[in-house]
């Protein structure tokens, strides 16, 4: 089953490699990983999407907690949460299909943030499956480049992951 593990970790050099190294050393799956500093610049927030049986996910969270730099973590899959992923997508355009591509982007609430005579760059955020659906809706041959951030997530309600 897919899990989203959200981690508060000391913002130190090498912290990322400790987490990434743990996954490779123990043979855990890692679908995506995003990391950036938080409002407290001594801390980074990391979001890892992984999958595995309940036993494996339990081990993953225990092993992550065991890392000295990890301050706190939660498994978002265990409670109501929202998740979003950012995608930037560059497509080749012609005079004939520009309007069509823009309409599809509008339906998916994407924004065109760069235009040249032959290309669009479309920005889109949403749950990962929505981004997948958008890609599917486009003509494959038109896509020049896709960049995705990997999902990040946050729990709903009063609770939060903080010190």
């Amino acid at each position, binding site marked *: 089953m897919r899990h989203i593990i959200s981690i508060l970790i*000391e913002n130190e050099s090498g912290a990322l490699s400790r987490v990434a190294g743990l996954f490779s050393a123990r043979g855990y799956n890692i679908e995506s990983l995003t990391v950036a500093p938080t409002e407290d610049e001594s801390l980074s927030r990391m979001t890892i999407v992984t999958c595995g049986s309940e*036993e494996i996910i339990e*081990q993953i969270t*225990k092993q992550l907690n065991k890392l*000295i730099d990890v*301050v706190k973590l939660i498994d978002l899959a265990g409670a109501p949460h929202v998740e979003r992923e950012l995608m930037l997508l560059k497509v080749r355009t012609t005079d004939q299909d520009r309007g069509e591509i823009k309409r599809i982007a509008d339906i998916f609430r994407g924004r065109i943030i760069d235009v040249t005579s032959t290309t669009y760059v479309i920005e889109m955020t949403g749950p990962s499956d929505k981004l997948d659906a958008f890609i599917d809706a486009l003509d494959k041959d038109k896509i020049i480049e896709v960049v995705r951030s990997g999902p990040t997530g946050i729990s709903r309600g009063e609770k939060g992951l903080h*010190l």
Partner: protein
Amino acid sequence: MELNGAQIVVQSLIDEGVEYIFGYPGGAVLHLYDAIFQQQELKHILVRHEQGATHAADAYARATGKPGVVLVTSGPGATNAITGIATAYMDSIPMVVISGQVPSPVIGSDAFQEVDMIGISRPCVKHNFLVKDVTKIAETMKKAFHVAMTGRPGPVVIDVPKDITDPRIKVPYKYPRKVTMRSYNPAVMGHKGQIKKAVELLLSAQRPMIYSGGGVILGEASDELTEMTRLLGYPITNTLMGLGAFPATDPQFVGMLGMHGTYEANMGMHESDVILAVGARFDDRVTGKLAEFCPHARIIHIDVDPASISKTVRVDIPIVGQVKPVLEQMIELIKDSKTKPSKKALEAWWEQIDKWRSVKCLEYDRNSPLIKPQYVIEQLYEVTKGNAYVTSDVGQHQMYAAQYYHFDKPRRWINSGGLGTMGFGLPAAIGVKLAFPDADVACVTGEASIQMCIQELSTALQYKTPVKIVNLNNRYMGMVRQWQEFSYESRYSHSYMDTIPDFVKLAEAYGHVGMYIDKPEDVRPALEEAFAMKDRTVFMDIITDRTENVYPMIESGKGHHDMKLRVALGTPTDRELA
């Protein structure tokens, strides 16, 4: 007080109470060695290879409970230390390793003797630090010792670039008395409710078994374990790492469990209905085939490391906490409880265990004209009256030592259990002897293992650490040969050496006493003579039966009840070589 970086490192060690530092100099640590030269409190032990430094420090920690400290230079010094760091990591031994690094401005430029020590050591340390600022050294040192010693202990590496120890840069120094880390708060007390549930289950057991590991020794909880076990009257087995946590000569002790554990311990585990695992981690050498592990048992597991719980074997009542306070609470609850262990059930259970014991799984051919390795260990036990510190290397001799030397006290059995590091024994013996100069220290080894760190014989002479080396020389890598005999139709692929040095001459060349023993009747007198030479390191090259195997054995992939026992008429190898 203003000190330079090198002095701060040394002074921090002194303020931390460090007595010995094991190391080897080199370019990146020259400032540090200059600071060591200019003081008397911290004693430096110069080894002959960095691996030896880590094993000696590791064994010092195992024997004393105090952290072992190592100093190595950058590049090859650091990589040579890795085997020893990994050894300590697998057995949760507190160790602080200071490695030199090339100066900060050239890090990443493939400078001379540069290696990414933080990266290389990361998978085999509890934590590591790169010091980036001279003002941060003292705090980093304190953190390193704090992390190494608390929770589930382990090795910590501090990588110190050369410019950080520059003697020209002086800063105010104060060693912090305490350090707190918001991201690191290891559990201490176990959950009260869980402990209560555990005691209830334990007292209701019909066929209980206590299975304890190295965590009891690391957690200084041998007294509590012993008290509780005697209070309950239950049988107890120890893992390889846990030997000595409960007195081996106590009738409640059923021996070691696992791959080369006793018949009674493994059968007891297999038939048990309640298992109390204390400071043990259900290692594959202990469990055998997981699907067949303790099929009838409900399991209680006490461990300071939550990640050890339900890692390989699902447990019913987990208790996360230090073993000592948890056992103390359990003892109190057991004493206060109205429920007492069922006398009738326990009597029947002991009767069953005695039946298994009557198999005498550790018996061997005592009439052989050849020296049996088991006999040597039995004699070693008698000559040292069971009081020696015994270090070992890895292989058959290690198992014989574990099976036939009865450890009654914790911290006396010093071996590389998790990583299985050949070459551990001799430097380990030196580390132990430095900690306890008046104690008998024996290194049980084999002719293959000893050659992996034999250069430390020179260290033993320099620092006058008279250890006794018991070399069980069967002219084979015995354990490899044994597996090849059992699983590869006796195709002994590269498990012997065509050339073996004359160990007597070698010992003498290093300035020690060498002895060659090839008759069973000479074993006892040789051991007595060797241990009587209080101020000499003695190398006993004992020529043993080359066909002897370690029994019982659970071959990999089999369950506890599926043990290979000694064949009365000898093994195929006996016949082949007869």
